[in-house]
C-alpha cells in the first residue's frame, strides 16, 4: 500500500501544529517520526490515521485522501496505537485483541473473528497471554497486546505513538525489532534517537510542525541536525557491530531551545487525560 503525505497541515488554537508536511514513508518498512516535544508528531499521526481533518493538503492511501474514506473501511486499513492506552474495564487479553475486529463486525457478529484474533495473538508473540487479565500485565506485555489488537484490524498501515514509552531497555529493543520485522508499513513516533537510528529504515524529523529532514537515518541523523532541532550538542558515532549511527549526547547548547517546543502541557511522562486534542506534541 502506498502512503503519501502531501502538503498536509492543520491548526489547533490558531497555531499551525502541522504545517505543509510532504513525505513518502517507504512501503513495508518502519519509519521513525522524530522531533522534540511539541513538534507535531502526535497530530501528524492523527492526520495520517484520518482521525483529524487536514486544513491543508491531504494524506493519501493509494491516492485516496484518508479523511474521505468511510470510518469502518478506514479502520480496516489503518490502525493507530495511542500513547498511554489504558482501561478500567476488566478485560482479558483475548477480549482486548478482539476489539480490533470491531471494524469487521456486523450487528450479529459471529465467531469467525476468533481465527483472526488467534492469528494476531500469535503474530505479536502474545498467544501465551491470551487468558490473562489485561490489567495484570507488565508494561512490555501490554504494549505487545496493543500491537496484537492493532494487527487484528489487519491494517495495511500501522501507526504507533511512542510505543516504547515506559518500557525497560530489553522490552524497547524487542518491541522495535518485532515491529521492524513485521514487514508492514509502519510509522512510529519515537523520542529515543538511538532506537530510531538502530531500527528505522527511514526517519522523518519534525520541528515546529514542519518537516526538516527525511531519509535513511544514517544520512539524516547528523550532529548538526540534532543540534539544530533538539538544541543539544552530540557526536554521532558508528556502531562497531551494526554499522548504524549511535548518538553520544553532550550538553544542551546554551541559549538554544528545541525547535517548536511548547512544553507547558506536554511532558511525555505525565499521563495526559485522553480526549484532549493532542496537537502540541
Amino acid at each position, binding site marked *: 500500500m502506498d502512503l503519501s503525505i502531501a502538503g498536509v497541515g492543520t491548526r489547533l488554537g490558531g497555531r499551525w501544529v502541522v504545517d505543509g508536511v510532504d513525505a513518502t514513508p517507504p512501503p513495508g518498512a518502519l519509519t521513525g517520526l522524530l522531533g522534540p516535544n511539541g513538534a507535531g508528531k502526535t497530530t501528524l499521526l*492523527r492526520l495520517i*490515521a484520518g*482521525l483529524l481533518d487536514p486544513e491543508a493538503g491531504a494524506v493519501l492511501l493509494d491516492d485516496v485522501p484518508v479523511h474521505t474514506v468511510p*470510518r*469502518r*473501511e*478506514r*479502520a*480496516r486499513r*489503518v*490502525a*493507530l496505537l*495511542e500513547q498511554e*492506552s*489504558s*482501561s*478500567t*474495564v*476488566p*478485560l*482479558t487479553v483475548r*477480549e*482486548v485483541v478482539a*476489539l*480490533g475486529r*470491531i*471494524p469487521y*463486525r456486523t*450487528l450479529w*457478529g459471529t465467531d469467525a473473528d476468533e481465527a483472526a484474533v488467534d492469528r494476531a495473538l500469535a503474530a505479536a508473540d502474545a498467544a501465551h497471554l491470551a487468558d490473562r487479565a489485561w490489567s495484570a500485565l507488565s508494561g512490555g506485555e501490554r504494549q505487545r497486546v496493543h500491537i496484537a489488537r492493532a494487527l487484528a*484490524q489487519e491494517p495495511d498501515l500501522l501507526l504507533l505513538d511512542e510505543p516504547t514509552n515506559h518500557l525497560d531497555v530489553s522490552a524497547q529493543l524487542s518491541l522495535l525489532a518485532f515491529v521492524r520485522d513485521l514487514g508492514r508499513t509502519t510509522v512510529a513516533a519515537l523520542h529515543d534517537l538511538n532506537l530510531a537510528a538502530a531500527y528505522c529504515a527511514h526517519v522523518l524529523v519534525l520541528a515546529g510542525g514542519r518537516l526538516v529532514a527525511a531519509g535513511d537515518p544514517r544520512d539524516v541523523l547528523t550532529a548538526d541536525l540534532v543540534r539544530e532541532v533538539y538544541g543539544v550538542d552530540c557526536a554521532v558515532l558508528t556502531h562497531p557491530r551494526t554499522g548504524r549511527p549511535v548518538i553520544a549526547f553532550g550538553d544542551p547548547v546554551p541559549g538554544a531551545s528545541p525547535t517548536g517546543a511548547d512544553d507547558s502541557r506536554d511532558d511525555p511522562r505525565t*499521563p495526559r*487525560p*485522553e*480526549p*484532549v*486534542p*493532542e496537537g502540541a506534541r
Partner: protein
Amino acid sequence: MPTLLVGLALLVATVLVCVTIGPADIAVADVARSIAGHLGLGPAAGADGGVPVLTDAIVWELRLPRVLTGAAVGAGLALAGAVMQSLTRNPLADPYLLGLSSGASLGAVAVLVVGVGLLLPVAAFAGALAALVATLTLARVNGVLTPGRAVLAGLAVSQLAAAGTSFVIFWSATGDSYREILNWLLGSLAGSTWQSVAIAAGALVLVGTVLVASAVRLDAFAFGDTAAAALGIHVDRTRWVLMTLVALLTGAMVAVSGSIGFVGLVLPHAVSALTGPAHRRLLPVAAVVGAIFLVWADTGARTVFDPRELPVGIVTALIGVPVFAVLLRRGRGSAWT
C-alpha cells in the same frame, strides 16, 4: 445465552411469587388463574372456576401493575447505568449519581403542577437531559471528564434539582406534601397502574433494543475515545445519541417511580462479574437482573414494616452504598482525581 435464559426464568418466578406477597395471602395458583382469566386463557374472575373478585382485584389492579412496573424500571435503570459507565469510562456512573434522576423528577413535578399529566414522561426526559448536560458541562475540564469530577458535578446538579422538586411540591401540594416529596426524591412504586407499566415497559423495549444493538460500539470505548475512533466509531455522534437515549430511558422510569438510586450502579458491576464485560452479553443480563433486583427490593419495601411502607429508594440505597464504597476503594488510581 444460558445465563440470560436462567435469568428470564427467575424473573418470571419472581413476578409470580412477589405478587403473592403482601397483607392479603394469595396463592401462586390464584395469581396464575387471575392472569389467565384476564388474558382469556381461563375462566374470568367471579365466574365458575375463576378466582374470587376481591382476590382478582388485588392481583390485577394493585400488585401485578406494581410488580411489572418495578421490573421494567429495574431493567431500565440497570441498562442506563451500564451504558453510562461505558460511555464515560466511569465505574461510578449511574443515572442517580450523575443527577439525571433528580433532573427528571424536577421535570415531572413541574408539569404536574401545571396540570398536564400527559406530558409527564416528556418533561421527565427533558429534565434528565438538562441534568445530563449540566453535569457533563460542570465536570469537563478542557474536554477531560474524570470519574471523581463527574460524581461531584452530579452531586451538585442532583442537589439543585432535588431542592427544586421539593420547592415545587411544597409550594403547590394541597395534601401530604412531605410524603409526595419523599416519593419523588427516594422513589416509590406505590402508585403504579397499568399506565405506568405501559410507559416503563414501552420505553424499555424501545430504547433497550437500540442500546443492545449498539453493544459492539460500546465495547469500542474500553480504551477511550481515540481508540474508539481508530476502530471506526463515530465517537461524538455515538456518545450523544446513546446518552440521549439513556436520558430518555431514565426520564420514563422516573416519571412512573421517582428517582430510585443505585440500581444502575450496583447491577452492571455484579452482572459483568458473571457475563464478562462484552456488552452483547452484559446488557441483556443486566436488564433482567435489574428487574429481579428491583421487584424484590420493592416487595421488601412494602412488606417488611407492614403496614408502614418504605420508599423503595431506602432499600436500594442500603444495598447500593456499600457497593459504591467498595468501588471507590478499588479505584484509587490517578484516573480518579
